[in-house]
């Protein structure tokens, strides 16, 4: 099972992943599960009616907006990075946080690399399955690599212009 790193209150920590990632052709186990968008669209109503938490993996080419209606009941939206240079899931995370006001866990899965930590955090990711074996200490440091930012994003950082104005 890959390491799960969580980002909370400006620090990363390693956590056990309570969710089981279930492939489309596998019967559903007990407990919390993460399923594909296709499976969620087929079996979502049933899953959400059961006593368990439900997560959905949205692949890079899929529209995260299609989850809009069910979002309040979804515990995890896992956004996939098929390659580190495929950045579609950054947009998906921004849409989830800033447009759909999603407050649950947004998890980065796939080719997730430490170098991308600051950008992912800015776009609203708060959980990561790193593909490069990096540790939570490294993620904490990476998340604070730049003290100032120019723009508002999905995190709580204040842009430089607003900091200047406050001085």
């Amino acid at each position, binding site marked *: 099972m890959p390491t799960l790193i969580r980002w909370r209150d400006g620090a990363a920590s390693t956590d056990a992943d309570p969710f089981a990632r279930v492939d489309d052709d596998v019967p559903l186990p007990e407990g919390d599960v993460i399923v594909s968008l296709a499976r969620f669209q087929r079996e979502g109503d049933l899953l959400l009616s059961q006593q368990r938490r439900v997560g959905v993996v949205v692949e890079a080419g899929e529209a995260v907006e299609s989850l809009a209606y069910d979002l309040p009941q979804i515990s995890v939206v896992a956004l996939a990075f098929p390659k580190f240079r495929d*950045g579609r899931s950054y*947009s998906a995370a921004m849409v989830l946080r*800033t447009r759909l006001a999603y407050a649950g866990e947004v998890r980065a899965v796939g080719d997730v690399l430490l170098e991308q930590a600051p950008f992912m955090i800015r776009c609203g990711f708060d959980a990561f399955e790193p593909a490069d074996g990096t540790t939570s200490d490294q993620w904490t440091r990476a998340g604070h690599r730049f003290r100032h930012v120019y*723009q508002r994003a999905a995190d709580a950082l204040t842009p430089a212009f607003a900091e200047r104005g406050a001085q």
Partner: protein
Amino acid sequence: MLVGGGLGRTPYLGPTIRRSLPARHLLSYLQAILRVYNRHGRRDNLWKARIKVLVASLGAEEFARQVEEEWDRTDKAAIDLPDTELARIRAAFAPLGFQTLPRVSTVFEAARSEDRGLARFVRNNVVAHKIQGYAIVKIALKAPGETPGDCSAEQMDIVADLAERYSLDEVRVAYEQNLILPHVRLDEIPGVYQTLLAAGLATPNINLISDIIACPGLDYCALANARAIPIAQDIARMFADPELAEDIGELKIKISGCINACGHHHVGHIGILGVDKKGEEFYQLSLGGSGEDDAALGQILGPALPADRVTAAVDNLVAVYLRERHGAERFVDTFRRTGLNPFKEAVYADAH
């Protein structure tokens, strides 16, 4: 807002997707453009993973529609800069300390009527400034036979001195591989010219045939298929006579040593692209491009030529222009009127 232009292996002129946009919405609109591209651009082929490819495949109108739709859904207030920040940025570009000067400088007028060299330099390298009594002085790093865009440390020190003393501390680097002193008082131009002349920096050929843009090419670059610098040097030497160059007038030659188009050959009046044919350097010529307000992509003249035929081909192209031109028409205007044929015939005459 123009989106989807670019050179490289698939050149496109950027279409206008929005006629005007209030400055305060620039960031949110740019974000909308990039989000549409990020979400819908191609990922299957590295060469096609470009915003220009997406715009071309959707069409500018559909791309614009998607951007507007995305922008409508954007929380603009969260993204756009507040007016106070725009004002702070504008203050960094406040007008410099210009003096109130007469429109005409008698010192300058007297010097240029006495010195033909200065007069030529002024005709070609000096451009009017929006502030009365000032001018823009362009320093061509294009002495015929030298490497385009090169200057020595000593020359650069001299330019820095001139900038400090005569150009309100400012010197700019132009994409044409030249330098610009943007704020020179007319009174000071004769002196600045003399200093440049003594330093070998007064080549009076801005926008003329020997003011060639060339990428580093195979001499320096690991990507290149062919050399660019020696081709530029050969052409500039052939047209080193300033009388001849001025008679030919504005003619922008741009040379790239490979398809990545760092030399912007697609938008040269004459574009020259180095290609590799079985280990030998060949050069493909294109005509009629422009990277200015009359932007256009050049049309390929014909089969690529070996290195030793390029300069002669340029000479042929110029001869056709001088023969065909009407009045004050520039090379590129003549080409646009006559089309490719007369030029093609002249260059490939001996191939028939």
